[in-house]
């Protein structure tokens, strides 16, 4: 037959070769470690000699799969060695705590702004003092609204 020929492979099959890059990123929302299996395909050629003395090569592909294990916890990925149990906090409780922090934080900033305004007044900048104090008042009104929302959220459900 015309297709019959001897294959004289002129290389070893374990020749190192590069894999193509792939993007393994995906949303990390849980805390469990696990692995994803995926495949890599690469193409290479085997040069061989036919019975008639012609030497050439055919490209062909190999596919293999492997796994990468990883953690979905960003803190673990960043080197956290702590017990994961302490991370289990009610999301709403955390949100309320953050809002409470912001309300207190804003009140502290309003106080600092009022002190800056006083320094402006001491420098004879009366108009600037009044404008900054107006801003402090507006700031406190907004913070009062936040505080009201927070108080409503902290009320027990009926």
């Amino acid at each position, binding site marked *: 037959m015309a297709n019959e020929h001897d294959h004289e492979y002129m290389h070893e099959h374990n020749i190192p070769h590069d894999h193509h890059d792939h993007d393994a990123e995906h949303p990390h929302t849980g805390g469990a470690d696990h692995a994803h299996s995926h495949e890599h395909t690469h193409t290479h050629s085997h040069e061989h000699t036919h019975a008639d003395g012609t030497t050439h090569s055919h490209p062909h592909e190999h596919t293999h799969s492997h796994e990468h294990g990883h953690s979905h916890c*960003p*803190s673990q*990925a*960043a*080197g*956290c*060695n*702590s017990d994961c149990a*302490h*991370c289990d*906090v009610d999301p709403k*409780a*955390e949100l309320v*705590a*953050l809002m409470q*922090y912001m309300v207190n*934080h804003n009140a*502290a900033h309003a106080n600092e702004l009022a002190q800056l305004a006083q320094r402006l007044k001491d420098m004879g900048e009366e108009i600037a003092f009044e404008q900054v104090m107006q801003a402090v008042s507006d700031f406190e009104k907004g913070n009062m609204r936040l505080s009201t929302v927070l108080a409503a959220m902290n009320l027990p459900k009926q």
Partner: protein
Amino acid sequence: MCLSTVYKNEKKPENQMMQNVMLIECKDGVVKLTDIMGREMEIEGEVALADLTGGMAIVRPRATA
């Protein structure tokens, strides 16, 4: 005064160690982070940078042999 986000080595999302950090303590080569909920995290290393206006700190872990 603001809460901070702490990263390992470099400010990149994948390097984020803890958000809403209210306390950073360094003692005996260990950096201890505490967030607003009281959760704690410890890592052997040092604070490389603390951006107090940007609310960001970077911790450099101790190199392991």
